C-alpha cells in the first residue's frame, strides 16, 4: 500500500466516522418526528365528533308533561319514547330489528341530549325542531375514515343495513361534524363517543398543584440550607448522598412507598389527587433540589460579601440578595420538575388512580384519574374509538409539557443574570 493509498483510506475512515455521528443524530431526530406525526395523525380527529341531524317532534302525548312544567319536573320526565320515535324516523324501517339497527347509529345518551335541548329552549311542546344528535362510536369512526368498509359483514361492527342508512344520510347531508365538547367536558365512559378527559384534566391539575405546594417550598428551603448554611460535616454529606440517590430511584418505588405509608398506614383515601400530589412531591423533591442548588451556587460570593459588609446578617444577605437573584433558575428548575411529574404514570397506577371514574372530581379528596393514567387506561381498551381518544389525550399532555418547558426556558433567559 502506497502512502497516498493509506492517506486516502484514513481520510475515508474520517468521513465515515463523521457520517456515523451525523446519522445517529438524524435517527434520533427522525424518531421524534415519527412519534409526533403518528400521535397527531391518529389523534387530531378526536377533537371533532360526528352528529346526525334529526327532526324531533315534542309530542305532548308521548312526553306526558304539562305546558308550564318546572325544570325539576322536566328532569324527572321520561324522554325515552320521544327519543326512539324521533330516531327511527331517520330511515324507513320495516321491522323491529331494523329499528334497533337505526337506534344503534346514535349514542346511548341521545335521550339526555334531547332533554337538554328541551330544557334550553322554552316551551317546545308540540313543536318540531332539528337537533344534531351525537352518532355512535362506530358511525363516528366510519365517517372519519378510520373504519374499513370492505371487510365481510360478520367481521364488521356495522351491518350492511346500517351502511345503507349511513350512505343515505351522507347523501342527504344529514351527517355533520361538530366540535367535540364531550372530549373536554366529560369524565371517563365505556362508550368512546361519550368519554372525555374532563375528570383526568382536573385530577392532574389538583395533583400538580399539591405537588407544587409541597415540593417547591421544601426544595427551596432545603437547597438554601445545603448551599448557604450547612456546616461541612457527616450529616450534611449524608443528606447530599440521599438526595442524589433519591433522584435516581425508579418512580415505581415511590408508588410502593405511597401504597405502604400513605394508603396502608396513614389511611389517606385511595385514588385521590391528594395522595397523587404527595407521592409526586416526594418524587420530584430531589429533582427540584438539584437545579435549585445549582442556581444558588451560580450567584457569586461578592453578592453575599457585599451584603455582609454593609451590616446585614447572614440571613438577610441570603434572603434579601442571594435568593432573589437565584429565583429565575429556581423557578425554571421547579417547572421542569413539575413537567416530569405531570407525565409520571407508574406510581399513580399503584395508588389506585386506574379506577374507572365517571364523575369529575370536585375536591382533591375525590377519586379521580390523571392525564397519563387516562392514556394507559384507554390504550388497554379494545374499541377503535379509544385509539384516537388516547392519541388526543397524549396531544393535550404533550402540549402542556411544551408550554411548561418553554416557560422554564423563557424565565431563565429573560430574568437570569449572567455573571462573568
Amino acid at each position, binding site marked *: 500500500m502506497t502512502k497516498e493509498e493509506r492517506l486516502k483510506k484514513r481520510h475515508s475512515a*474520517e468521513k465515515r466516522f463523521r457520517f456515523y455521528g451525523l446519522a445517529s443524530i438524524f435517527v*434520533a431526530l427522525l424518531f421524534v418526528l415519527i*412519534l409526533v406525526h403518528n*400521535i397527531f395523525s391518529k389523534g387530531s380527529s378526536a377533537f371533532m365528533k360526528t352528529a346526525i341531524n334529526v327532526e324531533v317532534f315534542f309530542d305532548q302525548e308521548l312526553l306526558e308533561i304539562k305546558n308550564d312544567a318546572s325544570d325539576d319536573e322536566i328532569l324527572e320526565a321520561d324522554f325515552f319514547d320521544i327519543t326512539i320515535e324521533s330516531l327511527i324516523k331517520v330511515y324507513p324501517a320495516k321491522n323491529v330489528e331494523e329499528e334497533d339497527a337505526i337506534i344503534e347509529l346514535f349514542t346511548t345518551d341521545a335521550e339526555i341530549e334531547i332533554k337538554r335541548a328541551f330544557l334550553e329552549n322554552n316551551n317546545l311542546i308540540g313543536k318540531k325542531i332539528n337537533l344534531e344528535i351525537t352518532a355512535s362510536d362506530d358511525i363516528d369512526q366510519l365517517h372519519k375514515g378510520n373504519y374499513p368498509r370492505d371487510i365481510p359483514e360478520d367481521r364488521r361492527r356495522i351491518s350492511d343495513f346500517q351502511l345503507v342508512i349511513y350512505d343515505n344520510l351522507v347523501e342527504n347531508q344529514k351527517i355533520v361534524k361538530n366540535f367535540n365538547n364531550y372530549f373536554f367536558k366529560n369524565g371517563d365512559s365505556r362508550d368512546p363517543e361519550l368519554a372525555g378527559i374532563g375528570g383526568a384534566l382536573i385530577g392532574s391539575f389538583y395533583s400538580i398543584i399539591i405537588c407544587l405546594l409541597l415540593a417547591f417550598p421544601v426544595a427551596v*428551603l432545603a437547597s438554601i*440550607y445545603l448551599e448557604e448554611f450547612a456546616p461541612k460535616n457527616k450529616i450534611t454529606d449524608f443528606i447530599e448522598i440521599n438526595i442524589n440517590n433519591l433522584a435516581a430511584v425508579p418512580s415505581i*418505588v415511590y408508588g410502593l412507598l405511597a401504597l405502604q405509608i400513605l394508603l396502608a398506614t396513614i389511611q389517606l383515601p385511595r385514588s385521590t389527587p391528594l395522595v397523587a400530589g404527595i407521592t409526586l412531591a416526594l418524587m420530584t423533591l430531589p429533582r427540584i433540589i438539584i437545579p435549585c442548588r445549582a442556581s444558588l451556587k451560580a450567584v457569586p460570593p461578592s453578592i453575599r460579601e457585599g451584603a455582609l459588609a454593609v451590616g446585614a446578617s447572614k440571613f438577610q444577605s441570603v434572603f434579601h440578595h442571594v435568593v432573589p437573584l437565584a429565583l429565575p433558575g429556581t423557578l425554571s428548575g421547579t417547572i421542569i420538575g413539575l413537567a416530569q411529574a405531570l407525565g409520571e404514570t407508574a406510581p399513580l397506577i399503584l395508588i389506585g388512580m386506574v379506577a374507572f371514574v365517571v364523575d369529575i372530581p370536585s375536591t382533591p379528596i375525590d377519586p379521580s384519574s390523571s392525564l397519563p393514567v387516562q392514556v394507559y387506561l384507554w390504550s388497554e381498551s379494545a374499541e377503535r374509538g379509544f385509539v384516537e381518544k388516547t392519541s388526543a389525550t397524549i396531544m393535550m399532555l404533550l402540549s402542556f409539557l411544551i408550554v411548561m418547558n418553554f416557560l422554564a426556558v423563557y424565565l431563565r433567559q429573560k430574568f437570569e443574570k449572567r455573571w462573568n
Partner: protein
Amino acid sequence: MRMNFVLIFLITIFSLSLFFYGRSKTKSISIEKNIKLNALPKFYGYYLVLWCSIPSLVFLLIWTLFEPVIIKSIIIETAANQGAIFNDKNEANLIYEKIKAIYAGTYFGDIDTILKESALSYAKFINLFTNSKIVLIFAIVIASVIYSLKKIKNNNKARDDVEVILKGLLFASSLIAILTTLGIIFSLLFESIKFFSVINIFDYLFGTNWSPQRAFVRDASAITAEEYDELKDAFGFIPLIAGTSFIAFIAMLVAVPIGLFSGIYMAEYASVKIRRISKPIIEILAGIPTVVYGFFAALTVGPFFRQIGENLGLTVSSESALAAGLIMGIMIIPYVSSLSDDVINSVPQSLRDGSYAVGATKSETIKKVVIPAALPGIIGSVLLAVSRAIGETMIVVMAAGLAANLTINPLESTTTITTQIVMILVGDQEFDSPKTQSAFALGLTLFIATLVLNYIAQRAVKKYREKYD
C-alpha cells in the same frame, strides 16, 4: 379530614393577625417606655407568627399521622372483646373496613349487633379524638403565644431568635430527603421480611418459575409443607431478572451506539448552530412521558414488527421483547448522548492537540485518545442509562408480555420486574398474601439494583472528573 383544613385555616388567620399585633405592640411599647428596641418591630411580628404556627402545625401533622393507627387498634380490640371472631389480621382488617363503612353509611350488607356496637364505638372514638385534637391544638397555640408574648415584652433580640427558628426550619426541610429514603427502605423491608418469612430467600433468588397467581387465596401464617412446596416454585426471580436484563440489553444495543455517536458528534464536530438546534431536540426524547412511548410501542411498533415477521414467515409475538426494547432504547438515547457529550467535552484540549501534532486525523484522535481518556465517564453514563432501563415501568407494562418466559428469542414476549409489580398491585389486593408481599420484595430488589448501579456509575464519573480537574 375537613376538620384539619379548618384548623390550618384558623391557625393561619390567627398567626397573621398576631403579626400585626406584635409589630404595633412593640412599637407602642418602645414609644411608651421610651426604650430602644433590640430588633425592628416586624421581627417581633415574625417571632409571634413562627411561635404560633410551627408547634401547632407540627402537632397536627403528627396527630393526623398516628390517629388512624391508634383508632384501628382500639376498635379491633373492642370488637374482639364484644365477641367478634377473627383468626388473623386479614379478617380483623376486613371487619375494621366494615365498621368504617357502616360509620360512613356506605355499607349495605347485613349488620349484626357486634358490628353495630363497634360502629357506635368507632363513632364515639372518632368524635373523642377530633374533640381532643381541637382542644389540644388550642392549648398549644395559647401556650406558645403566651410564651412568645412574654419574650416580646422583655424586649428580646427578636431577629436573632427568628433566625434560629428559621435555620431549624431550613434544616428540617433538608431532612425530608433522609425521611423519604427511610420511608422507602422501611416500607419495602417491612413487607419483604414478611414475604421472606414465608418463602425462603434462596427459593426466591434462584427459582426459575414465576407464577404468583398460584398464591391467590391462601393463609400465609398457616402453610403446610405440601403447600409450601407448591408455593416456593411460584416465586422464582430468575425469569424476571432474565427478562428485565434482556429488554434492557436490547435497549442498550439501540441507545449506546446512537447516543454515543451523537454525543461524539456534538462534542467534536458539530458547529455551534447545529449543536444549539439538535441538542434540545434530542433532549425532547427524555421529556416525553414514558406512557406515550408505551402507547406507541404497543399500538404501532409491536403490530408493525408482527406484520414484518408474518411477511418473512416468522412468528413474532405482538408483545415482543424487541419492540419494548427498541422503544426503551430510543427513550434512553438522550441520557447516553448528553452525559457522554459532557464527559468528552471535559477531556483536556492538550490531549487532542498532542495527537494532532503527530499527524492523527480527527477521527483517529477521537478513537485512540479522547475515548480511552473519557472511558470511565462513558461507562458511568452507560451504567446510569442501564439503571434507567431496568427501573422503567410504563413501556414494558404496555408493550412487553405478562407471562414469565425464560427465553433469549427477542421475537417472543418476556416480562420484567416492574411489569410484575404493577400487575400484582393493580386492582384489589389481599392483605398479607405472599402474592402482594412479593411485589414489595421485587421493589426492594429493584431498589438495591438501581442503587448499586448508580453508586458504581457515580464513582466512575467522579474518579474520571478528578483525574482532569
